[in-house]
């Protein structure tokens, strides 16, 4: 162990490693991290009230559980996404229809659109 450092350092393993390495992954896919970051940024700026978001998340989870008594296919981050969209729409920050339209545009992009950099993936 070296001398204490000014900033906590990311451990790659061991008891003090971040949640994604300490046992199991806290986040399974990149979008979940981005969604979390977007939400925190909105709460921090005051655009979204944290407690209002939290209540919406509770409601979304409860609704899902009521509709899926067997519990199969549950995704916490799906509920988070639904909660954030609902809160944003209610606050007139964005409407879900616009969001859905843009997401559909993104879905229609050619596969590999994000791999167009000349330094990437020369193997075919």
């Amino acid at each position, binding site marked *: 162990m070296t001398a204490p450092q000014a900033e906590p350092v990311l451990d790659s393993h061991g008891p003090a490693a971040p949640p994604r390495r*300490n046992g199991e992954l806290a986040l399974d896919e990149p979008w979940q*991290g*981005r969604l979390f970051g977007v939400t925190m940024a909105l709460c921090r700026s005051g*655009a979204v009230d944290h407690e209002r978001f939290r209540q919406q998340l*509770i409601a979304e989870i409860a609704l899902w559980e009521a509709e899926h008594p067997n519990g199969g296919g549950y995704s916490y981050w799906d509920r988070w996404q639904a909660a954030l969209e609902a809160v944003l729409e209610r606050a007139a920050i964005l409407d879900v229809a616009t969001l859905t339209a843009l997401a559909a545009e*993104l*879905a229609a992009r050619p596969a590999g659109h994000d791999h167009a950099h000349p330094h990437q993936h020369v193997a075919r």
Partner: protein
Amino acid sequence: MTDVFGAGATEASAATGVTPGRPPTNAQRTEALESLLVERGYVTTAEIDRLVEHFLDDLGPMVGSRIVAQAWLDPAYKQRLLTDADAVLAELDVGSTQTEHLVVVENTPEVHNVVVCTLCSCYPWSVLGLPPAWYKDPAYRSRIVREPRAVLAEMGTEVDEGTEIRVWDSSAEVRYLVLPMPPDDVGELHDRTIDELAQLVGRDAMIGVAPAGTR
């Protein structure tokens, strides 16, 4: 390292060509959300990057681990932590966006504490980083209240029959951090540095589902 927070991350596909009509994935929906909010000036990509890094890499369980290690070494600090954790946190300036109180509960030979959020996933992010997947699982959230001893045993933590188990349900107002007991084999605490001791304090120990010193 797995880049679970990659900026502007997108879905990859083995297929080629445009695929009209394919429903957007969660990732595409999140990308669209971020794009619209940036465009409208509600957030910036840099701020999102910074917060994500803050909550995972800068904080993570390291803050909680060091708090516990310090409490092991310093009885006066421990007492302040147990009576007014908010004040201790304020001194650390961990930059929480949360407005609720943090309460620290101490494990002893007589009492074992474990934390849950039965309603959703309230969690002391500012000291523990992001919650583990099982913390959000409906089965954990319901069973740990009904049969804590059995659930803890399933998670590898056998609590003596003579030890009382207290389950703390997080709420909008209060979130909990368990102060675990030092491992039996740690020896003389004061022979160790705070960093060495912090290495023994895993996230699960601070939720109360594992003892300190174990993985």
